């Protein structure tokens, strides 16, 4: 081995030693090249892909249906039932065109509710039956329960208590398979029917069950309804002290919710309890409070009802 070969061999050995001692330092330039030339565009690509991914959005038609539906709700809340009817019909038509099953059910039920407000009971029943008798579309148990509940209410409006009770039970049976959130309302309706049929113990039981469900779902309006129905049952059972306490409890919830009509109902209820106890003056005081509330809210039916009660008491 001559000197030149010896030097070359030494260089190789030195390089090997250096690479074992300082491996990164030796290859640093390659890593930098990789980092700048490949990793950077790769990161950019990953970033762009991440930004580009958009969440699942609703179709234009669905968004339009929702817009119209919400306008219908606003019209309903301001008492413009004719406009509300038209808007819900439009929303239903769009939902049908995209076969949005839940949207179809919701709009049919809202149409039934508006028809009921307009006193068009047959039209309301027709809308509900479209959900309950549908063979082509499979609506959820929740919607079927809501539809049955609405049907029960329509029958009760017509004084058909037994049929109404049947549909209330059907509404409950739909809820047994899934949690609906309507059980409280259904039990309240059953309590109301039992009260009308003078089945007071049953009314109390249904009211209590309704109260439990409504408390679970934190539905204050229906909680107050449950308590008021129980108060009515207690009044009918001549348990006046309990009845008064329940009415006051219901009134507190109604006041917190700002439901003027319900506050008037509660006051009339307390008045009735006093009347049953023979305390005419106390009763009149509560009836006058109810009248004042009805007058302030412009509730013509409420005013007429309370005035009628006051006149009867005075006679």
């Amino acid at each position, binding site marked *: 081995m001559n000197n030149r070969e010896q030097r070359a061999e030494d260089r*190789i050995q030195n*390089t*090997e030693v250096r*690479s074992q001692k300082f*491996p990164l330092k030796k*290859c640093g330039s390659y890593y930098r090249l*990789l980092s700048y030339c*490949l990793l950077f*565009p*790769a990161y950019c*690509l*990953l970033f*762009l*892909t991440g930004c*580009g991914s*958009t*969440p699942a*959005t*609703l179709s*234009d*038609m669905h*968004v*339009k*249906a*929702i*817009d119209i*539906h*919400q306008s219908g*709700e606003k019209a*309903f809340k301001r008492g413009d039932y004719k406009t509300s009817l038209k808007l819900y019909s439009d*929303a239903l038509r769009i*939902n049908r065109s995209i076969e949005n099953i*839940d*949207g179809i059910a*919701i*709009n049919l*039920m*809202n149409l039934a*509710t*508006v028809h*009921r407000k307009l006193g068009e009971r047959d039209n309301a029943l027709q809308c509900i039956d479209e959900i309950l008798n549908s063979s082509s579309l499979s609506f959820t148990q929740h919607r079927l329960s*809501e539809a049955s*509940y*609405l049907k029960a*209410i329509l029958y009760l409006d017509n004084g058909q208590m037994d049929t109404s009770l049947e549909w209330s039970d059907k509404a409950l049976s739909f809820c047994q398979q899934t949690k609906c959130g309507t059980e409280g*309302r*259904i039990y*309240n*309706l059953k309590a*109301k029917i039992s009260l009308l049929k003078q089945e007071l113990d049953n009314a109390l039981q249904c009211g209590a069950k*309704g109260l439990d469900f409504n408390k679970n779902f934190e539905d204050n*309006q*229906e909680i107050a*309804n449950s308590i*008021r*129905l129980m108060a009515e049952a207690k009044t009918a059972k001549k348990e006046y002290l309990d009845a008064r306490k329940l009415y006051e409890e219901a009134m507190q919830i109604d006041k917190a919710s700002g439901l003027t009509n*319900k506050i008037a*109902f509660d006051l009339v209820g307390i008045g009735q309890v006093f009347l049953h106890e023979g305390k005419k003056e106390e009763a009149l005081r509560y009836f006058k409070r109810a009248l004042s509330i009805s007058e302030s809210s412009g509730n013509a039916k409420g005013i007429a009802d309370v005035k009628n009660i006051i006149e009867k008491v005075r006679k």
Partner: protein
Amino acid sequence: MELMKEKDSRFVNLEKKIGLFVVIAIAGIIVAIFLLGVQQDIFTSKTTIYFIAPSGKNINEGQSVKLSGFKIGKVKKLSLDDIASVKVELSINTKYMKWIKSDSKARRTKEALIGEEIIEITPGSINAKKVEGQGVIDYERVKELSEMAEEIQAEIKPVLTDIKQIISYINDPKGNIKQTLGNIQKLSEDILVTQKHVDTLIQNTDQNLKSTITNVNTLLDSAKTTITNTDNIMKKIDKDIPGIMEKANKTLENVEKTTGEIKKITEQAAPQIPPIIEKGGNIAEGTKDIVDSVKKVWPIRSLIKQPEEKTLKVDSYE
């Protein structure tokens, strides 16, 4: 260098690793471009239909085509045919073609008072045949603002002429109205003379009727005053009417002039309005796009509640 490669395990298969990395990067770019294409409807199936318009004014390539308020396509191409009419080629999303029937009509319209100029297609009747690809639909011409102003002016002009004639008729000294007023004046003068005769007659009547006569005299005095007042009023009316008529005439002339000026202003402003409206529409659309995009960006999208349909609450106690 060869020795380094052989000795260092990290450089084993370096070419393959780099190659694999580049392939993954290219695949990623292709997927991103594909997703963008899907978002921009590039891959949506389109069908081409036509309509023939007398003028291509305010019809542009890329302009939105809408049906019942939904964007269903856009203007693809404009070209002049043999008789100098404009052949407008529309590119329609095939899924919307089922609503375009042989009796559907295309018309140029605005989305609102301040809105984008669009081509609107009316949905045809249920029984009509569907329009197939390369089919032709009718074009319905929409009136321009200046044409509408001209129409209104044409309708108002005869009414103004009629009013002018009526005033001239009232103002005519030989006309019935003027002559009637003259007769009333003459009648009042005659009543005055008659009253004097009645006065003389009353003075010659019996003394017993003195008190009665006094009363009658008082009554007649008041009648005289009334008649004198009426006479004055008549004279005043007669004096004032020509002035009033002249003023009415001038007012009507002014109205006519004003209408003419309004028409001129409308004609001058009309060409400027569509571009302004178009710009406004573009800005509004751009803003909506930005807001819509921002709404989709994380984490903003998680803060915005998705709109939903819900049932009206039916109270169990009502």
